[in-house]
Every structure is written in C-alpha cells, then in structure tokens.
C-alpha cells in the first residue's frame, strides 16, 4: 500500500528516539584507545635509566615524512644525544616503531595534545643524552 513505507520509516525513527543516544560526551567522558592504537611516540628507558635508543638511524630512514631527528654522540656512535619528534608532520603511520630493531620506541595512549602553538608539537624524547618524557601525559 502506498504510504506503508513512510509509516515504517516513522516507526523506525521513533523507536530510535525512545532508545538510548549513542553520543559520547567527549570532553566529559574519555574513551581509552585500544592497546595498539597509534598516538604519540615515546621512548623506552633501560634498567640504568638511559634511553633504549642505539642511534642506528633505522627509524629516520624508514619515516616517510621526515618527522624524526637524531643527533649522535660524536664520541659514541651508539648513543643518541638528542632525539626530536616533530609531531606536527607525523601521519602516525607507525613505521618508526615497527622498524626499530631495539624496540626503543612505543606509542603512548595519549591523544590530547591539541595546541595553538606549532612549536609545542615538536618534542624531545632524548635531550642531552637523557630520556625526557615531557610530551607524555599520564591519565589515571
């Protein structure tokens, strides 16, 4: 019958209206991304508290977007003095973490670093040879 499709449509929408909304109230409710979600890059620390990076350059070569910068120690080519991430360019493809032969890099579970300042998107993982995790935010 003509009109039955219309009535059925009205029924569907009404049924949904009486059901529960699906919206996530984002700033008020936080959703934790799954464990392997690709977000911001961080650096593991070994037992001595030194960065796990062995300055092998694999991540730099593998990165499609020139996001990472590494400065080696002139005395010890296996030690990184500086490791900088320009996350403003990062496409979160995950190739650096995947390629790292020492598993030094990992992804944080932190996705809230919106900023008005592009400079704030550049953060150090290693500064003066020591691991800094200033970009990372620990959420309870």
């Amino acid at each position, binding site marked *: 019958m*003509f*009109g039955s*499709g*219309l009535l*059925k*449509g009205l029924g*569907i*929408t009404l049924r*949904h209206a009486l059901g529960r909304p*699906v919206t996530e109230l984002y700033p008020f409710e936080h959703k934790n*991304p*799954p464990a*392997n*979600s*690709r977000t911001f890059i961080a650096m593991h620390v070994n037992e001595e508290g030194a960065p796990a990076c062995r300055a092998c350059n694999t991540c730099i070569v*593998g990165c*499609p*977007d020139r996001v990472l910068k590494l400065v080696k120690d002139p005395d010890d080519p296996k030690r990184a003095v500086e490791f900088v991430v320009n996350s403003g360019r990062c*496409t*979160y*493809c*995950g*190739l650096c973490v*995947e*390629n790292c032969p020492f598993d030094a890099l990992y*992804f944080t579970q932190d996705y809230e670093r919106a900023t008005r300042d592009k400079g704030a998107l550049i953060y150090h993982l290693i500064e003066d040879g020591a691991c800094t995790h200033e970009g990372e935010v620990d959420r309870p």
Partner: protein
Amino acid sequence: MVNFPRKGVEGSTETMLLNVGPQHPSTHGVLHMMCEISGETIVSAKPVIGYLHRGIEKLAESRTWQQDIVLTDRLDYVAQFSNEWAYCRAVERLAGIEVPERAEWLRTLLVEMNRITSHLIWYAGVTMDIGALGTPFIYAWVARERIFDFYEAVTGARVMPNWMRLGGVHTDIDSAMLKEMRDFLERDFPVEVDEYEALLVGNEIVQSRMKGIGVFSAEQLVEWGVTGPALRASGSERDLRKDVPYGVYDRLDFRVCTDDVGDSLARCRVRLAEIRESARMCVQIIDGMPGGDVRAKVSRALKPPVGDVCVRTESPRGELGVLVASDGTTKPLRFRVRSPIFYNLSAMPHMLPNHLLADMLVIFGGIDTSMGEIDR
C-alpha cells in the same frame, strides 16, 4: 578559465550557468560542477576537478616501496584497505613476493569490511543529498563507528590504517576479536541493514525521486568507462572478484549483486545488497580462517626487478587499477592509480543532460564520488 561552451536550447530563453561547488553541501568534498541550466533542467554539465590534488603519484616516486603504502591510505579515504591491497598486490607481483595464506584471508576480511563502511558512507551521503535531514546518515554512522572500532583495535588507527605490508599484514587478529566481529556482522548488523533499506529503498518519496531517473544501459556505461556497482545495477555481471579472483575470493561462496533496471533506485538496491553480501562473506572468512604466519620476510630496501605491472582490483566504487613501474631501485619509477571514480565521473557530461537539478544529486549518489581518489 575553464573551457565551457554553452550549448543553449533552441526555441528557449537564455540558459543560465550554475556553478555547483567547489563549496557546496552536496558535492562530497571539493567537486565543481558547471551546469548549464534552462529553468531547472540541465542542458549540459562539466565536472571540474583538481581541488584536492596532492600529487600523491609524484610523492610516491620519492619514497621507498614500503613507505608508499602510507600514501595509498590517503587516495580514497573511505576505502583505505582496498587501496592498500591494490598497491601491495601490484608490488608483490612485480617483486615476486609470496604472501602467507593467513595474511590473504585477513586482507580479504578487512577489505570486505571496508566495502561495508564505504557503502555506509555512500548511504549516508545519498540520503543526505535527497533531503533526509541526517537521520539515516547517523544510523549508518553508528554501524560504521562500530566497525571502525574493530579497525582501531586491529590496525591501531581508525581511518588511516597503514596495516598491509609488502608480503602480508602488520598485525594479526586474535580469535576473540574475530568472534566479536562475527557476532556483530552476523547478528546485529543485518538488522540495521533492514532499517537502512526501509528508510531508503522502502520509502515512497525516495522511490518517486529515484525510479526511472538516470536509466542507462550496460552497453552505454561500459562505453563511458563506468565500473563497479553503478554498472552492475544495469545488469552487467562484471565483478573482478569473480572474473579475476584474487585474495581468497575463489574460496568464498558469494554472488555478484546485480539489478537489471539500471535506474538510480537499482543502484541503491545493488549497494545495499552488496553490504549484506559483504557481511555474509566476512562471516565465511572468519569461519574459514587458517592459522599460520601473517607476514613474509621482505627486505626493507626492496628492489623489484625492472618492469611494470598493472593490477586490477574491485574497490567499493569500481575497478581500481594500480600500475607500478620499477627501474630496479628502492623507489618506484611510476606509481599510477587508475581510479574508478575518476572515469565514472568523466561519464557525468553524458549522464546529466535532460535531468533536473535535483536529479543531479541522485545520479551523483549513484556513482558514489570520493574526491580523494579522483584528484589524487
């Protein structure tokens, strides 16, 4: 200036040039349609593209074979896995890489799920275009978000997965996740598709708008270079998943969804049927999934032999071709994407004349544009 000679209508008053887009609510991105209209009837039309041109084909030449997979995600950003797979298949063929069995099954699984999400985007867009305020849009989005949760849990990203690798896939899917997917696709999802169908195809207003609008025969469409669901709605059985089986399609029991009416409503029916069919296929794949490795060892500095290869795959929008040429170095000599929508859109000047302005959106919906792949 864009070359657009007006045809005019004999014995009529002056025609009017209407620029629909590039900023318009219903051009799905940045498509610009130059329409010559007489009243509300389209006399001639010309799509103007390129507003989203990012030069991906050029960028690919300065990246290594592996890094280019990141770029393929960004071609057709609603059918990411299809693009990845097309590219990976082309390079694997060129370099002679064997893909493990389980990886093929996993790839097929996510590509079919991707077909569902891509068609859900089409559904959302087409209902919006014909004037439903966005209710069906959001219903489609809810299911899509659910599938995107699976993507994120599997690949680590929702929209730009970068999951396939040359010689396999990046991460395996554990059996708990597979079961969750199966439950959703077998139990909850078909019920939602019933609702989509009732709100679109079952609605009398939609029928009055789409029935008999934009009727094209399969011969016409093949001549114009149209592929995919738009062509199958006219009765053609062309589907590369059957014609040139790749992945594990030859081991799945599925039918090619066709319709012989060839109007806009038939195109809607075909896509909705494909959503159901893909969900059915996903369940089959999950049931038949073998164990084993998911990734073959491939050198990071891969140097495929000199030569070129063109691989055709069936993306949600039609026949996606990837042509890669190698000069024996770590970077491609040429990376060419034969975009299905690029050629589908090129048929627009043939399809639109003598239709009303409102029909333009319906016909657009029939070929399901996605500017990311048209402009590359």
